[in-house]
């Protein structure tokens, strides 16, 4: 009883804290502050047609580097957790059910197409909605489908970590090149800017997004793989 009333109290407290925000909310009619600057000068300064990409990769590129680091940290801790439990059940056998014919046949057709879609999403991240994180997640979903349809299949853990490390290091290296060749860390003017709205434009943004896509894709694939490997009876 006391517990329930405490919970109710916490919920009411939260509701009271957020109610003024909802009550006094008015939609804006114009952009203000930093968003106005991004909107007016983004085309000249960054050259990416997708302004969200311009903000994520260049204006707040340092933030994105930190985000990639957090994702890496999460995947590393997951790997550590599952590695430790793996040693307990080393000699146990795998308990995978046989996949159905429909799933196996469909995955043969769909996996390459899903990977292609993921690559398309991160290569066009500076032009259309999408980008490295989304494309990477789509690629990892292709690997998840592959693992569902063929559970006995082993992925090379080494290949995953090599792709992940190389793309992470190259990301930082491109950021450092920005200090030497352009205005500062992660400045995208280190390559030719190209024509606005075409695939080869916006300087370093497509390259950074390809690297992020590969890194996120391999990290999430590593998580899925680690989870699968730990599915054993004790």
């Amino acid at each position, binding site marked *: 009883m006391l517990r329930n009333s405490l919970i109710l109290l916490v919920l009411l407290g*939260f*509701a009271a804290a957020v109610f003024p925000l*909802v009550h006094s909310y008015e939609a804006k009619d114009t*952009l203000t502050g930093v968003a106005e600057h991004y*909107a007016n000068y983004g085309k000249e300064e960054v050259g990416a*047609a997708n302004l969200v990409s311009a903000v994520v990769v260049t204006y707040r590129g340092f933030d994105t580097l930190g985000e990639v680091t957090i994702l890496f*940290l999460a*995947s590393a801790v997951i790997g550590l957790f599952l590695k430790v439990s793996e040693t*307990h059940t080393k000699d146990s056998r795998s308990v995978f059910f046989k996949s159905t014919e429909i799933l196996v046949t469909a995955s043969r057709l769909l996996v390459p197409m899903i990977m292609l879609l993921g690559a398309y999403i991160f290569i066009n991240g500076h032009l259309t909605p999408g980008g490295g994180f989304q494309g990477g997640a789509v690629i990892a979903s292709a690997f998840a489908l592959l693992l569902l349809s063929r559970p006995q299949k082993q992925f090379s853990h080494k290949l995953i970590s090599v792709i992940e490390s190389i793309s992470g290091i190259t990301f930082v290296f491109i950021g450092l090149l920005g200090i030497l060749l352009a205005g500062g860390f992660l400045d995208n003017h280190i390559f030719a800017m190209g024509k606005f709205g075409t695939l080869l434009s916006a300087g370093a943004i497509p390259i950074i997004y390809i690297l992020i896509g590969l890194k996120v894709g391999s990290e999430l694939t590593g998580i899925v793989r680690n989870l699968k490997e730990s599915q054993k009876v004790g």
Partner: protein
Amino acid sequence: MQLFSIEYISLVVGFLILLIGIWGILTRKNILKMVIGFSLFDTGTHIIIVALGYVRNKTAPILDQANLQTNTAQKIVDPVPQALVLTAIVIGLGVTALMLVYAMKLHNEKKTLNIEKYNDLKW
């Protein structure tokens, strides 16, 4: 304040999802359901942030048409909250995966997901 405008509806829905998430975290006994509560909390926050970046009758901040490329600030919604939510979604994914793996570890130890059975740190 228009009650049935798109930004107002999404703001209210976001806050409701956030409150449902807190309720789930506080009341559920099953660890997996608590993780779902955290996920709902996360999603509610994302909806609120995107709703706050809405500008009335403006379009997405993607300059793929020529008429958007001049006087851009008068024609698009705020790109900054969208970029922040993009960041938050990825971090939420990592944190959710971590919580699920931790739940799996706990289940391996005690063969139960009921939070009341985990009283080692209780005083």
